[in-house]
């Protein structure tokens, strides 16, 4: 089996796995990056979301062979000290309850606010449509994304709270 070279959180990693293995299991079982979660295995819940070249993708249905040579960022690589604006906003709004879905939520939110534009409620609805939180933290997630983006419900920049 060929050794595959991956770029994960700025580090080069070689993995020896079946090329069809979903990235999720390579991250979790092979590389020990367990912050990325298994929720459904079918891209229905968003718990497995990571960034591929800055875009939010579902790692549970992405074969590892598809991501060779691309930049992968997981929740562990978002910042070294919880200083990413989305992490700070999540802490400020005390978003998580059980917390299991939150790494995926945070990765999608980080992709959404990445280009530092003000986001509207409609954009948040769209960006987070693929995510499920069973504890029901949605209201705080919306507030936290606005806080991170410095935006208000209508998508204008401004003091969010």
């Amino acid at each position, binding site marked *: 089996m060929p050794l595959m070279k991956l770029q994960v959180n700025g580090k080069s990693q070689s993995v020896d796995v079946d090329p069809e293995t979903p990235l999720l299991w390579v991250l979790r079982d092979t590389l020990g990056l367990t912050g990325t979660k298994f929720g459904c295995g079918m891209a229905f819940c968003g718990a497995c979301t990571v960034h591929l070249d800055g875009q939010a993708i579902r790692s549970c249905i992405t074969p590892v062979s598809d991501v060779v040579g691309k930049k992968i960022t997981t929740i562990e690589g978002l910042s070294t000290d919880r200083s990413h604006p989305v992490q700070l906003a999540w802490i400020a709004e005390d978003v998580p309850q059980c917390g299991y879905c939150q790494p995926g939520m945070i990765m999608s939110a980080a992709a959404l606010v990445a280009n530092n534009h003000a986001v509207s409620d409609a954009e948040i609805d769209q960006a987070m449509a693929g995510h499920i939180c069973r504890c029901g933290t949605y209201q705080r997630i*919306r507030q936290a994304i606005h806080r991170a983006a410095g935006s208000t419900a209508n998508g204008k920049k401004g003091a969010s709270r």
Partner: protein
Amino acid sequence: MNGIFKVSRREFLKLCPSASAGLVLGFSLLADAKRVSASQNEPFSPNAFLSIGADGTITIWSPKSEMGQGVRTALPMMVAEELDADWSKVAVQQADLGAKYGDQITGGSFSIRGSWEPLRNAGAAARSMLIAAAAAKWGVEASTCRTEGSVVFNAAGKRLNYSELASAASRLPVPKVVAVKDAKDFRILGKPTPRKDTPPKVDGSAVYGMDVRVPGMLYGAIAHCPVLGGEVKSFDASKAKAIKGVRDVIEIKRTELVHQFSYEASGKGHSNYTRSGIAVVADSTWAAIQGRKALAVTWDEGSNGAVNSAGLRENLAKLADTPGTVIRNDGDAAKALDQAAKKVTAEYEVPFLAHATMEPVNCTAHVTDKGCEIWAPTQIPNAAAVSIAKALNLPNESVKVHVTFLGGGFGRRLMQDYALEAALVSKSVGAPVKLVWTREEDIQQDYYRPASLHRFQAGLDAKGLPVAWTHRAVSPSISIFLEGTAIEPRAASEVNGPDFPAGFVPNFRLEFVAAPSPVALGYWRSVENSSNIFVVQSFLDEIATASGTDPVELRLRMLGEPRKIGEFNTGRLKRVIELAASKADWGKPVPRRSGRGIAAFFGYASYVAQIAEVSVTDDGDVRVNRVVCAIDCGIAVNPDTVRAQMEGGIVFGLTAALKGEITLDRGRVQQSNFNNYRMLRLSEMPKVEVHIVPSMEPVGGTGEPGVPPIAPAVANAIFAATGKRIRRLPIRADELKA
């Protein structure tokens, strides 16, 4: 006797090896409201500890599982308050105590209620011992000293840190009487406090059961018989074993579990077993999942191969024509119905529901010659330990349970089937194994909230108030499922016998018919309240309509003058109803096909009223725009957590009301993943406003009370918007077209 004991450093380190112990106190958190009195009669067996280390760290060793409800913040708040501790130095460690240390259940919205007295007492006792140690060192009266931020000060301005005093304090006696603070002096309790478990939950470092890694660990997946109660007949493992990374394929037989609460075998006819299945063990989760897919299993479907939802519903309807166990019978309901000025009748139905925690069912187990160690996201470690000990013929003490963070519990993790399964798999392969259920297994092999049918009749007097009320509830019984056919169904606890409107209608009759069911049953966030509050609060609305009374007004009139009936304080329920109504603009005009609905609930020692504001499109699609929630939970330990629990309870209940339904065909659960067992999404989230009644009453629960009122509030709002009454959940758009 305040139930607080000193624990020797040596004994404590055996229990909690990572502890840095100076002063250690042991005490018991209460397990649940029903068993408080029982546990008081037992010999002292602590299930929690407070340690103050020589490094100044203050640690609560608690068996309470953190499943999102905020115990890892609320428990330290109680201790920090009474101890006048430096908040940043107070933390909770999960205590992995073992089976001999009594109740360790997390459930019943009881973790904070059951910790309130013991933890505050322990904090106050430790503070008094630290002061005594400081006073002795200084040669001053203890009464001249004060405490703040983990420091004792004396009148001369001298100071000693708790870290410097812990060792000396541990040589002093525990005070027989401790005084806790008056609520007006609280500096921490009752103040919105950031959760201590948020930081590890935003950077991926929080370890859930799914994330456990043990040296030499293998990965397992399992296929259970898709037919309820069916078993493996034969299987061909060759294709599975041909998959790279697959190590072993083993049959797991149906194995008995101990009862959740007694830790003893359940009675005759109970159904508390693991399921029959085939486990695939591999070098990675993915290989195990692929191996599972490649299994060729012939199932013995048993007697349930023809079970379907239509048949189960018909059976409930048939049973509704038979008399049930009479749970309450006030006055003469039949006679009063005959003589009533007006009669109202209705029949409601609710479906089976799955828990679908975001973290699928999993457990890591390592069985060796010496015993068994498991790492489990569990709400009830003892039941896991004793079940494993019995099944593997080990002494209870040789099973060690490490409780991880739980990626949701909601009652699913009160069942310990998955822990025993993991142990059986580990024993069979002779290595540590992390057994992970696929989402499909998680949804199709759950212990479901029972489906039920409810038949109501009410008779109204000339003023429109109900003078007669009959309710016959027909449902499979959780207690029979877990405890066996030999017991009388715990009918009262399956339908909230003693609760409102019982006691408020002079002629009142409540019956329960236990329906036989092949479907596995379990506790689902708010349990029977999730069904019964929907039907009762919907029927109250039907009475309001029939009598031409405003639904808020009807409830207030029925509740009457504020008074206490047992633990139920009618004034507190009235107050949350009035508060919700005033905040929600009750009675103000709304646009076409929009409306408001109310429902209220007393349970878990808390009072909740919710008003939903909905709009219904001409196609029948329901949009819940806003929910106003008023809660009186007594002293709100961490008001921000109370708010979060209400927000979350509303989403949980709303998901069920709008989407939740487990159906069966050919003995199989038809739903399998989030594409067909659907969840509320962010775009569907109503604006939720939570109003907390300032209260000095004893602490009430908040994990469950937010769930029951939302379904009837929404159903009643839909009636207000469309004139159509929801009598069957989930709410169906095709019944609401303009």
